[in-house]
């Protein structure tokens, strides 16, 4: 709780101080409302007036819950009581997004901050209100346009496969049946076409798979992340064997995710850790988890080639590659897919790295009540 206001303001300055404060309250863009410990509105500034559509005289002296839709309207008295008894508030000192009710009955999203003031021994609360309807609307629009873009990518990549398959197949026929009658230069042209068609097939295939991560509904269930990480290892058996990589897996928890996507995520991250190894160093990879209260923090660390800090963001962009095709194969979709998967789990993904020493990829998975914990 904030300390009580003890600083004595010299008497002669108080009037001046109050006048200035009032100017601030009148001109500030945010709505500012003060209430007493019973929830009765004490002041209502011009921005609050504009936001809610009430004149100050219509609301001062009334309970602040008239500005709230259900369920807040009915529960607000309880919130105050609970706070005064326990000192633990849901909004006070934290701030959050809530719904508010205008005079005309319309409900809008607002950002609410509440602070406690103790004035002459009485507890008062100051609420700061910002109407975020516009921001919310912009967010919704962004979400919609992203979804549309994903659908477009899905449809485009799906339909592009057809003609591309024809190009690739007929090039193969042409190559197979007429190579003997071609001169060296024609043969070279054929090679370029074949290679380009193959690459484009790879990219379109990857793009299709990537866009499906957003389009198709993925069911969540309780997943033993340790056994799924071991499954990912089994899928990578050949490359792990070939590079003699050591992969150590810590005790990993049960999490609430889509099992297929989690497997894919782990497989991509561990696969990358092996792929970007240093030539003369045996890959040493660790998969660990840290309990961060509200979420699990997973990490996959390696002793590979690492990368400069400036690339740490770019690597999650689709088709972004840091290396030439000759050195490392692939279209550059692996980490973009990882990002999409993690974001689908409502987590975050990032990397830390030192060139020549290795990289660590981190991702979070929010804790949700798993069936086992609920039981």
């Amino acid at each position, binding site marked *: 709780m904030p300390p009580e206001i003890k600083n004595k303001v010299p008497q002669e300055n108080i009037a001046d101080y109050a006048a200035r404060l009032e100017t601030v309250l009148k001109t500030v863009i945010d709505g500012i409302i003060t209430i007493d410990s019973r929830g009765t509105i004490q002041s209502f500034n011009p921005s609050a007036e504009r936001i809610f559509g009430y004149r100050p005289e219509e609301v001062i002296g009334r309970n602040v819950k008239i500005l709230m839709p259900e369920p807040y309207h009915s529960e607000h008295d309880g919130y105050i009581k609970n706070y005064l008894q326990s000192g633990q508030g849901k909004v006070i000192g934290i701030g959050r997004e809530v719904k508010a009710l205008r005079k005309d009955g319309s409900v809008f999203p607002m950002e609410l901050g509440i602070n406690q003031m103790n004035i002459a021994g009485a507890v008062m609360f100051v609420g700061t209100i910002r109407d975020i309807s516009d921001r919310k609307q912009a967010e919704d629009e962004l979400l919609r346009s992203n979804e549309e873009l994903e659908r477009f990518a899905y449809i485009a990549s799906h339909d592009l496969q*057809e003609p591309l398959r*024809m190009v690739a197949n007929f090039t*193969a*026929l042409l190559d197979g049946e007429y190579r003997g009658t071609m001169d060296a230069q024609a043969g070279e042209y054929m090679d370029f076409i074949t290679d380009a068609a193959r690459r484009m*097939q790879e990219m379109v295939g990857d793009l299709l798979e990537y866009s499906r991560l957003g389009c198709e509904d993925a069911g969540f269930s309780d997943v033993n992340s340790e056994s799924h990480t071991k499954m990912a290892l089994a899928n990578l058996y050949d490359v792990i064997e070939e590079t003699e990589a050591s992969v150590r897996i810590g005790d990993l928890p049960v999490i609430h995710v889509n099992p297929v996507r989690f497997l894919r995520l782990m497989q991509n991250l561990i696969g990358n850790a092996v792929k970007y190894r240093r030539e003369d160093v045996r890959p040493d990879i660790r998969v660990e988890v840290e309990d961060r209260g509200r979420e699990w923090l997973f990490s996959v660390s390696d002793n590979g080639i690492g990368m400069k800090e400036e690339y740490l963001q770019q690597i999650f962009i689709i088709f972004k590659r840091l290396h030439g095709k000759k050195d490392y194969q692939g279209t550059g979709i692996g980490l973009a897919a990882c990002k999409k998967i993690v974001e689908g789990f409502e987590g975050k993904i990032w990397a830390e790295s030192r060139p020549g020493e290795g990289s660590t990829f981190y991702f979070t998975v929010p804790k949700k009540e798993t069936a086992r914990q609920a039981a």
Partner: protein
Amino acid sequence: MSAAPIEGKPIDILLVEDNEGDIFLTRKVFEKAQIKNTITVAEDGEKAIELLKGAADRPDIILLDINLPKKDGKQVLEEIKSDPSLRAIPVVILTSSQAEKDILESYDLHANSYIIKPVTLENFGEVAAVVENFWFGVVALPSHPGASKTQDKQREDAA
């Protein structure tokens, strides 16, 4: 080996496909794999049903695309599998669609197998060889595909 076609007799394939390139490639691939065959092509779903209902000789196998003009592949599949005189003919869905929905629906409609069109000619050749070997080297098929008619009649009477 108790496959339907007599040893040495070409496999009678009904290819339901509207893409000329794919028709050409399918013929090519079976020819290259040295599979003796006769391929009859139906370029849309309606034609496929017409051919199947009108012909005295049933094909040994049906290769069915999903995206087709007029009746689409799923409708064709449904009609084949609800016709007692046709339902024993193996229907292999051969499509570029990888969508889970298409795969599930096809099996719900009793497709015998679902194959995603291979992207390279080489793989397509392998797939053709596998299909031929499986359906005409491994699997037992009735010698008279219409034999289940009576059972079906009884079932209908009972209902």
